């Protein structure tokens, strides 16, 4: 009797696990299957789950700079890579310095500053987008080109990512005992050298995690790209996926799926490779406060 119940429980568990896997992976697999289907196959009733034969024409088009889709895709991919990496680097450099300062020294207003950093992360993007737009188009544009440029997006993305970087990194710094700084300074390091030579190497895992989160956030951003870019000068992958699905660039569901799959591929690969790190970072960023 007891054995039978145990076996039933095991079977039930595996059924649940299977359901979780189908729910988690199913939609994404469907995106890929759609992207390699011909239009005729997509329009068949009843539905054909597996495209046979598969076609890779939409991927070929994206990597062909002479096709209209290819020109858009390659520009968007380049812009996204440049913008997301630059944002990550800027946020890490200045965010890490500030985080170290907040983690190591106590001064008046320190707690308010830490909370302020966290609060900026919670601001809705649209609340910053409106004043940014008026300031940039109404004033800044006269002295320096900003609209539809990559550096503009890097600045705007920094605004909502740097607070998170400071927040998570100061948590990592607090796990390193303060004695280590002092020991390094006794050994002749300046305060700054204690940070760069002793403490930073110890928080490398934290740096990687925080950098990844910053990169993924910048890669994902859509609203500001929609408002502040228009041409291949600066538009990003999310904007590309938006315009291939609507507007005059629309071709077919399969083309939209292929574009979406390519836009998702870099963050998905990064997330799967570093999933342990990311989960611990998310836990540090969310669970610990």
């Amino acid at each position, binding site marked *: 009797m007891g054995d039978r119940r145990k076996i039933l429980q095991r079977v039930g*568990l595996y059924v649940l*696990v299977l359901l979780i896997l189908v729910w*988690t*992976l199913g*939609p*994404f697999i*469907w995106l890929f299957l*759609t992207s390699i289907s011909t239009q005729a196959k997509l*329009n068949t*009733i*009843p*539905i054909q789950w597996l495209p046979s034969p598969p076609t890779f024409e939409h991927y070929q088009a994206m990597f062909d700079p002479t096709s209209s889709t290819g020109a858009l895709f390659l520009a968007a991919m380049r812009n996204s890579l440049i913008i997301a990496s630059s944002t990550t680097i800027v946020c890490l450099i*200045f965010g890490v*310095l*500030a985080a170290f*300062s907040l983690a190591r*020294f106590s*001064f008046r207003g320190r707690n308010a500053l830490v*909370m302020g*950093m966290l609060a900026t992360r*919670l*601001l*809705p*993007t*649209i*609340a910053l*987008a*409106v*004043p940014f737009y*008026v300031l940039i*188009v109404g*004033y800044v544009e006269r002295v320096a080109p900003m609209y539809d440029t990559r550096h503009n997006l890097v*600045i705007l993305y*920094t*605004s909502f990512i740097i*607070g998170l970087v*400071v927040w998570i990194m100061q948590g990592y710094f607090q796990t390193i005992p303060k004695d280590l700084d002092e020991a390094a300074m006794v050994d002749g390091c300046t305060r700054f050298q204690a940070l760069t030579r002793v403490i930073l190497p110890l928080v490398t895992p934290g740096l990687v995690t925080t950098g990844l989160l910053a990169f993924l956030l910048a*890669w*994902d951003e*859509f*609203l500001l790209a929609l*408002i502040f870019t228009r041409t291949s000068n600066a538009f990003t*992958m*999310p*904007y590309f*996926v938006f315009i291939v*699905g609507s507007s005059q660039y629309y071709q077919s*569901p399969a083309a*939209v*799926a292929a*574009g979406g799959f390519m*836009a*998702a591929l870099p963050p*998905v690969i*990064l997330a*799967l490779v570093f999933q342990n790190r990311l*989960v611990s970072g998310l836990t540090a960023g*969310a*669970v610990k*406060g």
Partner: protein
Amino acid sequence: MTAKVSRKQDSGQMSQRRGDQAFAFSLLSPALLIMLVVVFLPLAYAFFLSLNKAEIVVVGGKGSVLAEWRWLKNYLYFLVDPSFWYSVRVTSYFTGVSLAIELVIGTIIALVLDKEFWGRPVVRALLILPWAVPTVVNARLWGLIFEPHAYGALNGLLQTLHLIGPTEAVNFLAPIPIFQNVPGLGQITTWLGATRAINWLILGDTWKVAPVVALLVLAGLQTVPKELYEAAEVDGATAWGRFWRITVPMLRPVILVILVYRTMELFRVFDILYILMAYTIPVLAVKTYQEAFVFGGFGRGSALAFLIGLFILIIAFVYIRLVAVTEEA
């Protein structure tokens, strides 16, 4: 002599302290300056704009801002505008329902993954995939699945399961009010702006987030001491009783953080609704976008943006207080 020495030490500590302060400030200042320029200045400017009727005039490629002082008229305009309160209700409906579903599905997944089974590390690793899919791709992905023709993916699935006829098709993203045949409830859902479309879009948004909620809950589950369960089992508690009496209270801090953090993310939802529904589901972010960038009313847009920002800052404040209280306890 001794007094002199100690005074010397004192001043030494003092100058070291002052050095520390200077060092702390020099590390902090670049980030502070960045945040002042890209966050706090624009917010202050948004407040100024919100008190004006503001338009952008572009002449010969040069833009300039026309501002006309209006006191609090922009705010009053929204506070007496029924469409603003409709937006507040739709946003709240989207937020509340998503949150409830995310938490339930997330907790169920976490409870399953907390058990030992073959291939558990792989399943756990794969859970992060939906979270990594960009929101715009997620919108397009569900747009494809919700295809309103007989050959659409979800329609195909429903046909395969014999839930609808072999050539039938459901228009999932139709703005059809729900529960209309239930007296009372139908009026409430209409008032909230609940439609078939928004419900299916909540499913799409949940797909992306529920697995991460699961991972966070799972991290929380692992902090629950196993002895507690064993003791409860000895005392004859049922599985259900153990879940409510031990698991839920122990998960309280994690769930609290997920609740408030997700509330704020959901409250500013834009991408999936704008991409698939344009302006037909006017959540606050979509309404603000339309007010400022479609109608060109930057004063009114700022007032709206400022109202959302203020609202979110209040939630953030409450959140921080709650977390502080939990950490002390």
